[in-house]
Each structure stands twice: as C-alpha cells, then as structure tokens.
C-alpha cells in the first residue's frame, strides 16, 4: 500500500522521496576524504549476508523491518536494506557498550522477541506473524510500542518489552539513516571533510545542497504507525539505547 496525496490519490513510488529533489550526497563523493568514501561506498554496494538469523527468523525480521521503517514510497530498486545491517551487528556481537541487567544478550533478545511476536500472532489470529494481514502486523508491533503485548508473557517476564522494542527500532533507524539515500531524502549534508560547510546560519544550503520543496502526504490506509505516542506512555526511558552521544 502506498502513500497518498491529501486528496487520497496515490503517490507513485519514487527513486528519492523527501523534500529535496535532485539532491545527492553521493554525487559529492570526490570531495570526501578517502577513508570516508571507502566506508560509505561499501555500505551502499557491499550489503552483508544474513548469517545470524535462521531463514524463518529472517523472513519474520524482514517484515518487521518493513513496518518499523516502511519504504513503500521508494522505488523498489532504491529501498535501503535494513535487515542485513542488524544481522551483521548481531553476528559480529557488536554491542553498544552495555546490556541492561534485566535483558539477555542482544542476540538472545532478538531470538526471544521473534518467538514472542509469533506467539502473539498465534494467540490473536491463529497464524504466524508473517501470515497475517499488514494492519494486524502493525497492531501487534504497536502493542509492543505500548508495552502491552497480548501474549508471550513467559518471554516478557525474562525480557523487558519496552527495552526490546527500543532496541529493535534503534537498530532499524541506525541502518536506515546511515545510508546516503536516506541523507538525500532528509536533506542532510553528509561528509564535509576536507571541503567544509560555509553557510552555518539561517538554514541556507551550501552550493551543492538544495533548498526544501515540501509536499503533503498521507501514510497508507492500512498502517497505525503515522502518529506519535510515547513508548509505553512514558517519558523517562533512562539508559535506553545509546545514540552516538550528543554532549
């Protein structure tokens, strides 16, 4: 299901959604330093294989990622692979530097979480998560967001549901917003060494950046995720996933 114009007519998938048409960070790569170029280009062209998740788990995770970072507005050839980045982190046991005492190891948490999600789907719909409708899937994930899963309680006793949900969302956004196509979508300038930024004030674009051209859009009809409610209704998730530090 695709996004729509405010009058309800569909918007066709685009090579580059967002409000900065024609903007391309990759077009500037010759002005980046060599190491940055190497790391960013590898991210685009060398998508890691799935090694941590089993085939069944990967199938479920693919669907979950497509709910957490939906990309139906993107031309299929320009969708950003999310799952390989998460699998790669877990396969290489790359922690963020800590684990909550009420959480198992990150990898174990994913395996348990996938089992619990299937238990919820079985409990509510008598089928596996991947075999139920999109809206029903969205609602199950929303129940994790609210901290109120309908089943899998034996697992949620071993693992804090909100911490699991935050880790899942964090892992998805970490992969998506690391990709230069996502930078183009949101109008982020990207690497700027050694060339520098010069227009620091007033939101003005650099010569190679473009100005914003907004359009209004509605999320697909079968989703419940285009709204903002705090995770488990709480403002104070201290210690929830690290964020690259701000200060």
């Amino acid at each position: 299901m695709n996004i729509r114009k405010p009058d309800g007519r569909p918007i066709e998938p685009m090579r580059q959604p967002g409000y900065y048409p024609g903007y391309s960070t990759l077009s500037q790569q010759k002005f980046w330093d060599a190491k940055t170029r190497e790391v960013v280009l590898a991210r685009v062209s060398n998508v890691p294989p799935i090694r941590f998740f089993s085939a069944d788990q990967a199938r479920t995770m693919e669907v979950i990622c497509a709910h957490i970072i939906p990309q139906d507005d993107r031309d299929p050839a320009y969708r950003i692979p999310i799952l390989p980045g998460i699998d790669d982190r877990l396969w290489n046991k790359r922690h963020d530097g800590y684990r909550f005492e009420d959480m198992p190891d990150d990898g174990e948490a994913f395996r348990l979480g996938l089992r619990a999600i299937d238990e919820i789907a079985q409990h509510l719909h008598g089928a596996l998560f991947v075999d139920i409708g999109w809206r029903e899937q969205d609602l199950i994930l929303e129940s994790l967001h609210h901290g109120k899963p309908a089943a899998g309680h034996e697992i949620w006793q071993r693992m804090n549901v909100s911490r699991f949900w935050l880790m899942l969302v964090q892992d998805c956004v970490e992969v998506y917003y690391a990709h230069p196509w996502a930078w183009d979508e949101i109008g982020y300038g990207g690497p700027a060494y050694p060339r520098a930024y010069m227009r620091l004030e007033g939101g003005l674009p650099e010569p190679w950046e473009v100005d914003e051209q907004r359009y209004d859009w509605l999320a697909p009809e079968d989703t419940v995720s285009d709204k903002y409610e705090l995770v488990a209704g709480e403002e104070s998730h201290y210690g929830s996933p690290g964020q690259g530090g701000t200060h």
Partner: protein
Amino acid sequence: MKRPLLGQFEAPRNGSHWLGPIQRLPQPMRRFPEGETVDYVIVGVGAGGGVLSQRLSRAGFRVIGFDAGPFWDSERDWVSDEAGSHPLYWEELRITGGQHPLAFGANNSGRGVGGSTVHWAAFTPRLHPSDFRLRSQDGVAVDWPISYADIKRYYELMELEMPVSGPAWFPWGDPHGYAYGPHPMGGVGDILIKGCTKLGIRVSAGGPVGILEGSHGDRPHCIYRGFCIQGCKVGAKASTLITHVPDAIRNGAEIRPNCMVSRIHLGADRRVTGVSYFDPNGKERFQKARAVIVSGYSIETPRLLFNSACPGFENGLANSSDCVGRYLMAQAGNVVLGRFDELIRMYKAPPAHCMTEEFYETDPKRDFVRGFAIQSVGPLPIAFAKQMMKAKGAWGWGMRRIGMDYNHWASIAVLGELLPNAENRVQLSEVKDALGLPVAKVTFNLYDNDQKLIAFARKKTEEVMWAAGAKEVVQEARYAHLVGAARMGDDPETSVVDRYGRTHDIANLFICDGSIMPTQGSANPGLTIQALAARTADYLISQGEAIFSSNKRDMTPPPVRRELAPPETWGKGAPRLK
C-alpha cells in the same frame, strides 16, 4: 579542486602517522626493552593520562602510557560518518542496572589514545568556586579537599594548551575571558541566543569550546563540518592525542596501544611493582614500574582496582575505605528539541558553540540545591532518529515523516548536576570479557534532589525553546558524562585518593582521571580532568624520587610549572596571563 588547502581527498601514501591533515606523530617513538623498569606506568591515555604522560616525560621521567585501544591515525582511521565511528567508543560489554540505568558506549566512553577527548564535543567550562564546597554551602554531598584557587592556574594553563576558543568575557563562576576568539554561530546557537535573550537570560556565544577558531601551529582551524563527536579529522578540536601525546613522544614517553591492562601487582612491602597486560596478540605480559597511575575513567578505573584484588586487599586494591566504585555520577543531559517553520540544518557547525550558566548556582527560591547549564547540541541523523523514538515515540511512517523534517529541528540540552550517592556504584559482574576479565556492573538511581532538579531544568530549557519561536517542543531524558567512583578526600575512611590523586592505601599507586572528582558541578568534565592531571603532575615532579622510595606523604603544594606546557602554548594570546 585537486589540492585542497587543508586536508586530503586521497589516502596518504607515505608512512607518516597523521594527527590531522598537517601534524604528524613524531618518529621514531622510544620503546622500552622488555624487562626494564620504568618510572611511571599510566593506564589509559585519555584526558588525564594524555596530559600526565606529557608532563612527566617532559620533566625527564621514564613513562609508558598503556591504552586498550588503537593509536589513531586521523587520516586513515577516522570518517565523516556516524555509523562508521563506533570504533572510537568503548563498546565492550558492561552490565547496567538500577531504577534509572546509565547508557555507556558512545554516550560517555572512549577507547584508543586520546580516550574520550577524541569524541567529546569539547565544551570547556570551568567548575565554579561553589562546586568545591557543597557540604559547607548547601549541606549536601562533600567538600573537595581542594578549592577553586588550587586549580585556577591549571584551568588557565589548559585553556591555552588546548587552546579554548571563547568570548572575551564569561560572566559566571569566577568570571574570566578567553585568549582565543569565539566561533561563528550556527543555526542551533542562534536559537539558544534568541530564546535566552527573549527571556532575559545571559548567554555565551561561540564557546568556551576546545576547538580552534583560527589555525594554531600545525593544526588548522575548524571547518564547521559538525562531526566533533565522530572524531575531528580536521585536527581543530583538541584531544590529548594531538595536543599532548605528540609532545610526550618527543620527550621520550612510550605509548603502548592495543594493550589492555588486566591487573596491578602489589609487592610484599605494600607498594605496587607493575602491571600485567594483554599485548595486541592477546599474550599476557608484565611491565615493571616504580609507580602506577590509573587513568581509566569512572568505569574502567574501579574495574581494574577490583580485578587487582589480592591478599590484604580482598575487596579491591586501595579499597580499604570501601569507596572504590561508589559515588559514581553522571550529569542530567535531557535534550530538548524544537521544531521551527524555517530551516535550521543543525548538522552544521560544532555541536558545542553556545551555552548559558545562568541557572548554575543554588537558588533558595527553588525546592532543590545546585543547578544546571543549558548548551547547544547537534545530533546527526541517526542520533536524531533515536531521540525522536524516545521523545515522540516515533516509529514506522511516523519515523519516516519526522526524519524528513530533520532540517526543521534544533536541539539544546540540559547539563545538570546530580549529587553523589554511595549506592550509585560500579561493581564486578559474573560476566567475563573476551580476555577472561570480569566486566563492570553499574547500578544507578536518581534521588529526590536529582528528580526535582531535572524537572525544573527541563521546564526551563523548554521555555527557552518556545521563546525562540519553536512551534513544537519535545524532550528526551538522558545523561551526559561520567565522573566519580574513586573520589579524593582528606579522610582515608571516606575517600580513595588524597588531594593529589595518591591512593590512601598504597604510596606509589595514583589515580588521575574523572573518577577522583567528589562532586561534578554542571560543567562538562573534560577541562577539569586535564587541569587536575597537570596539577598531579606538578606534585609528582616536586616529589621526585621520594615517590619511588618513600611511604611518607609530603602534602606541600607544588609550584605551577608553566614551563612544562607544550611549546607555543603558554604565554601566547591576550589576556596574556603571567
């Protein structure tokens, strides 16, 4: 444009080790032969260890600085990229718990030579004189064993050694000015100034921040690319990797990277004899030293002391007070984000360039003691998305929508003082790391004064954001920095080290990093840690050979040895402090 003025588009071809686009690591570096006893082993070459190794080697001591992580080559190792910067952070496992658990890794922990100064935002405010007297003045926590006057000259020194850019007049605490001029404003700083000005709040523009606004020696000026927290490839942001370690090497210090110190050894005479460490190949080795200084920061320093437990110190080396690991602190770091109709583009300019300390001191009209600062921050897209996940509960299409609005948001943050508590602590976990060493387990809770301070600070920061013209304001609860867990004091019953960083229990074992701070104020700790390190160095140099042979404690204050500053730093600039 094939040959940019500063910096390189292509990978460096020659064998130089680059510290920024111009500066190179002095070669060759001294290597002490295996089996040789050195004067000082320093464990951790970060804010504290970097300055110490520079001072001690310049004074002629034989020094080895160990670091668990790499000796960074900024051109070959660092990237202008959020996701690619994980190697800069200490991401080894730690277990975190309590009612309000701390996050580690990118939030507050560095790895590799330079330590956290490689990825700090480089705000460099001083502590206020009141910060040293919480017990006397506010009836909470403890007084420091030293006063502001004891550290003031070291603040002045470090502000020139980094050097710090800032306004000619900084009105809070002990008012002072900066020799190097302030930075131009970015979009976020403009918002903070606008909001504060509307509310009649004084605000400091363009610093104080340890980032060059003009070129300095073999370091270029800032290019405003916004990747301070991902390591400054430009060489404009001060880190001990580029400000002090090169001078240490020129003066004969050895830095041993990729070597994890696993244990400090105690001899029969209750003096330490050296350290065990895992070399880069994972082989355990022993390095003899006449004195050991632990500079591993607030988690790894207590962890190493616990892992060095031995007969006579069953609860951890130098821990007869049971204070090792206790009184761990983080600062309140609530981030307040505001959406504006106009574009901000907050990824440009250093995140740290504008701040106010108007609410720093205790105000009897409030229902809590101590206070907070408000500072500019500049999350890049991944950090922004994670903030929105918590601040707004964004996921799915809501996340995509807010991501597309990234350039309309500005973010400023609370930096608030949380009080030390004995139950906020580091212990050892049952879990072991890849080397077989037990990892740290951290417990953290917020108490009554902390909760009231956070609620007030958050509200005030939100008021500033609204006053700046935001159309929507949200916030994310989080922490910033770490200090404490091996605090200094005059009483060996209630503190781990004395006023010079010497452990009360062992005469030739020292601690010199953020962990010795008894309280933290609302200032970013990096400047204070480096100032304390320079002061400890002056003490060690004054004591000379006595450190290596005597158990007697001479508490005579040392003279300030400005001549030991790296060349071309002290005595430059105006005000020309003498």
